[in-house]
């Protein structure tokens, strides 16, 4: 994690520390206050998040924003000789392609900032400065790293299985790309072409395709023809199988709670303030006050609500734990435990193949954070009342911008809908808050041993989640009636 300055000086035999510091005067952490560091990190995060948002929105807008208007209204007037049907088809294709294009642009840009964010925030937590040489406050460090990985030599070990070795990184990356699509429907509030990305069973879809990643890890481990890689692959498989059960059971409880398997509908059900979030019992929290009004004989009602809210919070914690294990993060990163397995399943991979593994891991973490924030933290809704949100939304719909300069293009700027800006920014901020929690966990907890991991999963987590599922089914019957 430490960035090395002035490689030339470091590589020469006589490294004079004073000389080094005269090349690049370094500040230690103690010289800056923690508050200044945190503020600098905040500025970095705001800048990078707006870059991510602008890139993704720009890509999406080019395809989804009034594409039908351009193709159906403008193009035929420009090229009257060409059949109108062709433009209609082009408009359809553009609308369908919009989510895919956004996914293809947001994943690399987002991963760049996620890695940087992890390194900077981790250094904050462990009282270091972190990367600060490339760009302002180290803001371009990961860009340089990515370029370096692109130009690295791609080595294939002797006696490896060449086909599987070639396929494994790509097949690890592909599911995370596919799984991104339904999230966009939530983020863009089903705008225009993004409604095609909204599957009716998007939650199960995400679970199903995320589990495909395990296959690629086993494939990578097997194809490398390296015992450490193989062990890493096998560990990945055993871990994914063990922790998928509590993850799915926790999600089933949430599905019972919100009565839908569509992420957009689950997000909609939590509109209207923090109390309506699934984390705090989807709006039932005030019934706890019945505990103290025992004169009315409603003590039982208050008690059941208390148990219910505790169950909801514990479901959230279980979900975070299990999804951390699913995406192979510390403290559950035993498939690539450096102290035991060199680097696990990705030991033999170099250059672009390694970059793909890296990219996919961070994207998976992003997706896990996104599911956590949609299932428990209100999804794409602001923590304000439904009325205020509706007022905000109606102010942002049907906006007409008239610009005299652009003439025929004016139709493009009529009846605009900017609700997606609010929803996607809200979701992005929530996802990054969840991501910061994941980094915090990483900075705090040591790695588990393989047997500890299995024991924790099978002996504690699964029975606990089963019990919660059972209790939740009974309590929901009572609460919702």
């Amino acid at each position, binding site marked *: 994690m430490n960035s090395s300055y002035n490689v030339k000086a470091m590589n020469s035999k006589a490294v004079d520390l004073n000389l080094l510091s005269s090349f690049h005067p370094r500040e230690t952490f103690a010289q800056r206050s923690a508050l200044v560091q945190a503020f600098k990190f905040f500025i970095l995060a705001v800048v990078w998040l707006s870059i991510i948002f602008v890139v993704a929105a720009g890509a999406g807008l080019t395809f989804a924003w009034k594409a039908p208007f351009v193709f159906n209204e403008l193009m035929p007037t420009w090229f009257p000789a060409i059949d109108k049907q062709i433009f209609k088809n082009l408009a359809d294709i553009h609308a369908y392609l919009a989510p895919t294009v956004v996914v293809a642009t947001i994943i690399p840009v987002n991963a760049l900032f996620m890695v940087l964010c992890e390194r900077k925030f981790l250094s904050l937590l462990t009282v270091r400065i972190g990367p600060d040489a490339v760009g302002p406050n180290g803001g371009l460090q990961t860009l340089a790293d990515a370029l370096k990985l692109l130009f690295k030599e791609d080595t294939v070990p002797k006696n490896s299985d060449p086909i599987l070795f070639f396929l494994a990184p790509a097949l690890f990356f592909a599911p995370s790309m596919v799984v991104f699509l339904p999230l966009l429907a939530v983020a863009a509030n089903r705008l225009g072409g993004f409604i095609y990305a909204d599957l*009716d069973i998007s939650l199960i879809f995400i679970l*199903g395709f995320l589990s495909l990643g395990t*296959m690629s890890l086993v494939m990578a481990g*097997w194809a490398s023809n390296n015992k450490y890689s193989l062990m890493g692959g096998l560990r990945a498989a055993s871990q994914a199988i063990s922790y998928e059960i509590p993850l799915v059971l926790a999600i089933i409880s949430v599905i019972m709670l919100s009565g839908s398997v569509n992420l957009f509908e689950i997000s909609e059900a939590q509109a209207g303030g923090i109390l309506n979030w699934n984390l705090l019992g989807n709006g039932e929290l005030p019934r706890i006050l019945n505990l103290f009004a025992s004169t009315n004989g409603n003590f039982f009602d208050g008690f059941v609500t208390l148990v219910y809210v505790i169950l909801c919070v514990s479901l959230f914690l279980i979900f975070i734990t299990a999804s951390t294990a699913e995406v192979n993060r510390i403290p559950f990163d035993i498939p690539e435990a450096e102290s035991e397995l060199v680097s696990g399943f990705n030991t033999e991979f170099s250059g672009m193949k390694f970059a793909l593994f890296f990219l996919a891991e961070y994207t998976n973490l992003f997706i896990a954070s996104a599911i956590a924030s949609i299932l428990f933290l209100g999804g794409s809704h602001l923590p304000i009342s439904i009325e205020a949100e509706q007022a905000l939304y109606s102010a942002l719909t049907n906006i007409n911008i008239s610009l005299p300069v652009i003439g025929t293009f004016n139709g493009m700027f009529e009846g605009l809908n900017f609700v997606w800006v609010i929803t996607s920014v809200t979701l992005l901020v929530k996802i990054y808050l969840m991501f910061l929690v994941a980094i915090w966990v990483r900075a705090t907890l040591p790695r588990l041993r393989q047997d500890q991991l299995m024991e924790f999963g099978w002996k504690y987590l699964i029975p606990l989640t089963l019990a919660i599922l059972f209790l939740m089914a009974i309590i929901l019957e009572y609460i919702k009636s």
Partner: protein
Amino acid sequence: MQFLATISSLPFYILATISIICALGMILNPNLVRAGFTLIGSFIGIAGLYFLLNANFVAVSQVLIYAVGIVLVIVFAVMLCSLKEEAHNIKESVFSSKARVTFAVLISSLVFAVLSFVIRSQDWQAIAKLTGAERQSSLVQLVDDKYLSQIGFLMLNKYILPFELVSVLLLIVLVGTILLSKKDIK
């Protein structure tokens, strides 16, 4: 939309080709692990076909159950049997190679016959033309809004016995696996 409708048969042929090639690769590949991975490819191709037919839930179940399941098979293949010994053992099998091929052809053609009989027995053209109320009463209920809850309801009411029998089958498999892997200790 019309344009997309005209090219919509193209994905079918692509997916069908993928799944057939992968299935052939699974049968013809002597390497157990590679065969497992090609089997996953075949299942994913079939899942894609389900997506094309608008049966999203079936498609995702296909991926969720089979992909991870086959990964388990591969892991067992790696852990439980040494691959060289396995290749050696196949030659000394109880049945001759001819008998095995005959059995395989017999069983697969039987499955094919049953499946094609079931598919043929439905008049799909007529079902596609049915309106909402008629469709509800017909044997095949095509996709509607609440099909997921319908699946759950039917599974725990009308088809509770097969559902439980499948669970018992899983239990038997679990016990059998433990028995097989503990063979040496006995």
